[in-house]
């Protein structure tokens, strides 16, 4: 018997030569369906909508198809168009409705708007290639088939306590002429550097924004050369579903989706996770003077937080604020994150200015923000890493109090500040420091969050590099064209005796030692370490602490440093390997400072120049701690014991050593006060300390001992 012909995917009507059918309202965006494409777009207040189709690259539309009234369900316009060649089509929407800024409406049917759910966006296909500014429709939505061959790949789900994060920038990482890659500044270029990352030992890379953004949104010029400064950081999203075409060597073919997926797949093969730095707090449309790209023209008062007068609230510091707790916008954020996890196998996200995600539509902080809760409990995001930058430019600072729902980790800004103060020998830091080393239980222990709530870092893209932290007292941002007024003035840095470049070998040695001490402390702290790319080779930005607009040697990774700073690189590699070898450094729970297994000594103990007697007084700058390896992972993974001495004093100090708790003797893993190659050893090759009862610890140095 023949089965009856299905009629549910047949066209119902025509518009010119196009055959149409009422579409399905979900999912939003353009979805390939049998025989056609389903277009669905939300607008609560538009009175009419038109689908605008373009032949790829052509300035004039190929067709404009108004959505018939019957194709609207609720606030969603949905239509299936048949027989479209998805390779040749770009699309957008015109929306009609009131233009009345005072009431928040800015409809303008003359504009063609980008689909907020566009999976690929054309218009900025090649990095830095100036667009045709006269073109009315700058950003074209493109269709993307979901046919990538992932084979057996899936997100790696590395336990957060085992993660070692490397924060980097897709373009800056390989754009420098010294990178030696075939496709500098692209996803493909980054892929060529995977052997380097693997050898370094990190198991997670955090990519600064890779969603489509406009590098041309900065109108400033370089004060010296007069060249236009590009926004190379990309914290100004154009579309939340589309990878930046200009970061793909194949962007000119519109193949950026495949190129990024290929990179993720290869990273996973190498055991490296991918976290995306995502920016949902504001968009590239800026304030009322900014361009109309998408959201503003689709439904301004839904997508943005507006003042009662219809202006843009600016909690982001850059013009507008996404109205994240409007239920429609909340869904868009969720849909976007789900898409990156399910389609791109992304392992986690770092949310820029995440405190904004906890504000209500009028800007008030919510005690139980629905978006943060939804993300924490979302089934598709169920295993991925969620990291908050727990503050915003509106003054909300939530480090330690970010609504976590048992899931969220935080960039621990207090860790950064305390470590910086200790590293420049400030007084009164040891109490705070001891908290930082334990995963900040003072911030996270009160509501049952463990050390993995704390993403530990001393430097990140925002601020000084590690080299500059020990080489500059003050920021030097002249190259940004803002008379050095931009960027933070509060860097907690110290130049070690001379501002900037110096030939003084003593100062150079001190800087190197302080850099090593910083990395050593980062790698022996409970919590999750994050290293800024290039810090492992002492990359400098010449004192620029806000390097968002220098797409040049000031921000590119100079690969010649891998040779010239090979000593520092070796030290960092050893520290990473050491952390990976010792589960006692990667606890999922805060130390209890007690003998809870009844072994005769506590899991962690605190010491000073005298063993068992820590000096917590304000003028003391030396602290030591011992981790009893028998307590590693609650006694489930017995490990060696470790002894870490941190001397923040400007003079060497003699330190009395306790005996290793389980017997054996102390071996030296690292001593930042020693010159290479005695500054560190490959784990497993540490030499025995000749004198077991006391140790001379150099000025501003860190010593790490391991029992065996």
């Amino acid at each position, binding site marked *: 018997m023949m089965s009856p012909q299905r009629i549910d995917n047949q066209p119902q009507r025509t518009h010119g030569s196009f055959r149409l059918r009422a579409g399905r309202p979900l999912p939003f965006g353009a979805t390939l369906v049998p025989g056609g494409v389903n277009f669905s777009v939300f607008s609560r207040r538009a009175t009419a909508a038109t689908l605008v189709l373009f032949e790829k690259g052509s300035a004039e539309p190929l067709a404009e198809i108004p959505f018939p009234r019957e194709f609207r369900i609720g606030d969603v316009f949905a239509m299936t168009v048949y027989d479209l060649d998805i*390779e040749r089509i770009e699309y957008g929407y015109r929306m009609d409705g009131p233009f009345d800024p005072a009431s928040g409406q800015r409809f303008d049917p003359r504009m063609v708007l980008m689909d907020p759910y566009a999976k690929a966006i054309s218009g900025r296909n090649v990095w830095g290639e100036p667009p045709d500014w006269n073109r009315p429709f700058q950003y074209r939505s493109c269709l993307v088939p979901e046919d990538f061959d992932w084979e057996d790949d899936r997100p790696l789900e590395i336990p957060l306590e085992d993660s070692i994060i490397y924060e980097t920038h897709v373009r800056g990482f390989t754009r420098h002429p010294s990178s030696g890659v075939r496709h500098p500044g692209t996803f493909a270029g980054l892929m060529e550097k995977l052997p380097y990352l693997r050898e370094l030992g990190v198991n997670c890379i955090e990519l600064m924004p890779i969603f489509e953004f406009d590098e041309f949104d900065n109108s400033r010029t370089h004060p010296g050369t007069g060249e236009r400064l590009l926004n190379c950081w990309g914290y100004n999203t154009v579309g939340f579903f589309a990878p930046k075409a200009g970061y793909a060597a194949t962007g000119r073919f519109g193949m950026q989706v495949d190129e990024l997926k290929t990179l993720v797949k290869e990273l996973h093969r190498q055991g490296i996770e991918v976290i995306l730095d995502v920016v949902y707090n504001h968009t590239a449309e800026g304030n009322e003077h900014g361009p109309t790209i998408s959201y503003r023209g689709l439904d301004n008062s839904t997508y943005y937080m507006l003042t009662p007068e219809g202006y843009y609230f600016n909690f982001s510091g850059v013009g507008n604020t996404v109205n994240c707790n409007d239920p429609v916008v909340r869904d868009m954020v969720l849909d976007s994150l789900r898409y990156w996890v399910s389609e791109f196998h992304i392992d986690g996200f770092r949310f820029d200015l995440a405190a904004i995600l906890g504000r209500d539509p009028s800007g008030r902080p919510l005690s139980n923000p629905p978006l943060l809760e939804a993300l924490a409990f979302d089934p598709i995001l169920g295993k991925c890493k969620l990291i908050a930058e727990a503050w915003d430019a509106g003054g909300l600072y939530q480090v330690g109090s970010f609504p976590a729902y048992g899931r969220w980790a935080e960039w621990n800004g207090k860790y950064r500040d305390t470590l910086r103060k200790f590293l420049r020998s400030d007084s009164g830091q040891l109490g705070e420091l001891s908290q930082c080393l334990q995963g900040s239980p003072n911030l996270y222990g009160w509501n049952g969050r463990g050390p993995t709530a704390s993403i530990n870092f001393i430097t990140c893209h925002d601020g000084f590099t590690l080299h500059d932290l020990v080489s500059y007292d003050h920021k030097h941002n002249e190259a940004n064209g803002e008379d050095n007024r931009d960027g933070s003035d509060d860097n907690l840095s110290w130049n070690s005796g001379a501002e900037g470049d110096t030939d003084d070998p003593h100062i150079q040695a001190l800087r190197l030692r302080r850099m090593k001490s910083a990395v050593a402390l980062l790698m022996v702290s409970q919590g999750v370490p994050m290293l800024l790319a290039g810090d492992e080779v002492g990359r400098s930005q010449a004192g620029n602490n806000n390097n968002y607009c220098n797409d040049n040697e000031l921000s590119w990774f100079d690969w010649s440093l891998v040779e010239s700073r090979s000593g520092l690189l070796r030290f960092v590699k050893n520290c990473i390997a050491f952390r990976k070898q010792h589960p006692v450094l990667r606890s999922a729970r805060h130390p209890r400072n007690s003998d809870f297994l009844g072994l005769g000594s506590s899991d962690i103990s605190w010491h000073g120049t005298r063993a068992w007697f820590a000096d917590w007084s304000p003028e003391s700058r030396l602290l030591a701690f011992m981790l009893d390896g028998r307590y590693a992972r609650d006694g489930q993974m017995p490990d060696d014991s470790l002894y870490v001495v941190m001397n923040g004093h400007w003079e060497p100090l003699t330190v009395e050593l306790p005996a290793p708790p389980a017997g054996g003797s102390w071996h030296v893993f690292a001593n930042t006060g020693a010159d290479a190659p005695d500054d560190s050893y490959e784990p497993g090759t540490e030499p025995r300390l000749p004198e077991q009862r006391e140790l001379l610890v150099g000025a501003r140095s860190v010593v790490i001992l391991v029992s065996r």
Partner: protein
Amino acid sequence: MALEVSLDVLDGTALIELMGDLDASSAFRLKEMVELAATREPKRLVLVLKELRYMASAGLRVLIFAKQKLGKDVELILVGAQESVLQTLQLTGIHQSVTLLDELPESLALERRRVPA
């Protein structure tokens, strides 16, 4: 330059030769040819790309389509891809699911000569 496509099917091998530019306007012709080849249930599909000057994303998509249309057990062999085409295949990961050869395997070349035009 327009695209020229030809198809031979010999003993379980479907052989498609491409000349010219494979872009959005011509990719459908390759797609049709792949569909035709699929009806003959070949054990392998060989695409000879020596004379192909350019392949746009639409062409790459047809390769992915071919792989999925023919199934896992059918080997997809690309012969003589020029450098620019080859690079795009690599950057987008497509090279992982196909076999890339510089020359047509001798056995196939011989077989082709035996078959009268």
